[in-house]
């Protein structure tokens, strides 16, 4: 039976949502596989998360060390290499920490690596069958990975259903003594909090959100006028912030703001998972995009295949005439 280890990320003493999504992923790797949660950190925060995880996992390993108090990927990797068996299947999250940790971990464990998995289709001998996406979600792929000498796999947060219950009655094993030398060539200094902008997009019930389809900084005015007509606020996807056309505080996505509007107007947004990861609370999503194959149409409630630069002014006029 395959032994799977799940790395539990947490912040401020609370496990991230993905912590409860690993069991479903593990079950799809191999029905009945045993999953051990592994938590690294320091002090009361760590103990709290480890005990919480024991409600969902039969076995929890905790590693307590002052050097692990902030999750510095290099330090965590050193501890994991000393604690995990070399042929382990290790699950981590495809998030900003997982991307920092997992590729190097797979090298040090000399095992296979697969990133950003959205589904598993079981094993065929030593070949694990995997579903991923490429090209910003425009296409899906089947991938096989030879896991005979172990694997490190990152799963996409939100891709697997969270485990129900919380009555696993698991035990916590302290393996702090096995962490080994945790000296690192990278030192964590501080977290610089995001600046608060002049408009708080998280407070608006209606967002007119613009992406690459806006094409030019001058066209943002077109979106602003539509937003004004709707009593909405303009938010955006990453490329608009990268181009410095709007402030970071207007960006919706995992690396920006998390919003919970009633209505989300995705204008010229392709709909990458990083972007949609910032849209919570199941809003009514309207997508307008001239590319009929844009991934956004798979998650939107209503879709329109038109050029937003022509469509938005017409919609604005019609709303103003109401």
């Amino acid at each position, binding site marked *: 039976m395959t032994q799977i280890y799940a790395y539990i990320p947490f912040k401020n003493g609370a496990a991230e949502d993905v912590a409860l999504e690993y069991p479903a992923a593990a079950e799809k790797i191999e029905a009945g596989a045993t999953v051990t949660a592994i938590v690294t950190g320091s002090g009361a925060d760590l103990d709290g998360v480890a005990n919480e995880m024991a409600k969902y996992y039969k076995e929890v390993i905790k590693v307590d060390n002052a050097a692990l108090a902030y999750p510095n990927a290099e330090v965590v990797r050193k501890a994991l290499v000393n604690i995990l068996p070399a042929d382990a299947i290790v699950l981590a999250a495809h998030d900003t920490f997982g991307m920092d940790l997992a590729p*190097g971990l797979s*090298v040090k464990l000399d095992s296979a690596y697969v990133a950003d998995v959205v589904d598993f289709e079981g094993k065929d001998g030593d070949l694990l069958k995997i579903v991923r996406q490429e090209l910003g979600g425009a296409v899906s792929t089947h991938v096989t*990975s030879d896991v005979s000498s172990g694997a490190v796999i990152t799963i996409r947060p939100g891709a697997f259903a969270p485990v129900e219950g919380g009555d696993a009655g698991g035990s916590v094993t302290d393996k702090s003594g096995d962490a080994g030398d945790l000296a690192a060539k990278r030192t964590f200094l501080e977290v610089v909090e995001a600046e608060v902008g002049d408009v708080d997009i998280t407070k608006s019930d209606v967002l007119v959100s613009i992406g690459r389809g806006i094409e030019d900084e001058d066209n943002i005015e077109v979106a602003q006028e539509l937003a004004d007509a709707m009593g909405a606020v303009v938010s955006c996807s990453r490329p608009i912030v990268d181009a410095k056309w709007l402030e970071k505080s207007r960006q919706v996505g995992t690396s920006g703001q998390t919003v919970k509007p009633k209505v989300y107007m995705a204008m010229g947004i392709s709909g990458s998972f990083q972007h949609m990861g910032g849209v919570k609370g199941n809003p009514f999503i309207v997508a307008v995009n001239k590319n009929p194959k844009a991934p956004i149409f798979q998650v939107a409630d209503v*879709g329109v295949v*038109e050029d937003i630069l022509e469509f938005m002014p017409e919609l604005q006029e019609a709303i103003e005439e109401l």
Partner: protein
Amino acid sequence: MEILVCVKRVPDTAENEFELNSAGNDLDRDDLVYSVNEWDNYAVEEAIQIVDNVGGSVTVVTVGDDEAEEVLRREMAMGANNGVLLSDDAFEGSDGKGIAAILKAEIEKGKYDLILTGAQADEGAGQVGGMLAAMLDYPYASLVNKIEVDGDAKIKVGREIEGGNQEMNEIELPCVLSIQTGINEPRYVGIRGIRKVAKVEIPVKSAGDLGVDEGAVGEAGAKTKRVDYFVPDMGDGAEMLEGSTDEIIEKLIEKLKAKGGL
């Protein structure tokens, strides 16, 4: 500061509508527009800016076929000093580790203080930088959106983490960093710039030149392999509004009224 930037030629997601070929096992590549991976452009721009400030040189490297040379020339037109193409039939079908192993062999032939990659490329894995660092035993930071060079032993880097926050780290040189978009504004490359570097010699290195074991890279060495491409059945997806623009807007306004959008 001697900087190496790893770049990749990829299908341009902004310019293409992706279709599958008739067999359904690959993209229809006949009319695909290729360009340099967007993240890599930011990495090259950052390298050029660092060298402008503290001196040194920028080398761009790619693993690919003959056509991959065009992205090296483009980045040299931006201002990179040298280009290297790592090309061999034995490299075909490499997984992330294979690519990292090929790059490692090239890096060990030179002497670089700083190695940059894009945070991710067309496959969306974001794996090569971290693997390369681990193979070289260099420290690594991913998703870097700020670099402060203040000396030649250590640098300060900011990583983009969730919620728009930035995680500041100090990291010893030599190191590997993967660069996130938005760290700078990559300069425009005009046709004149491309012409200027059209005749520059770009060395091409094979597995033999690099001393790479052919069995450890390419299809032969890959533990992770793509089987096919497919279009997923996503269930219903969006209700697509059809008709004239006026008709669409009429239907849309009704829905927005019902859902609290107006």
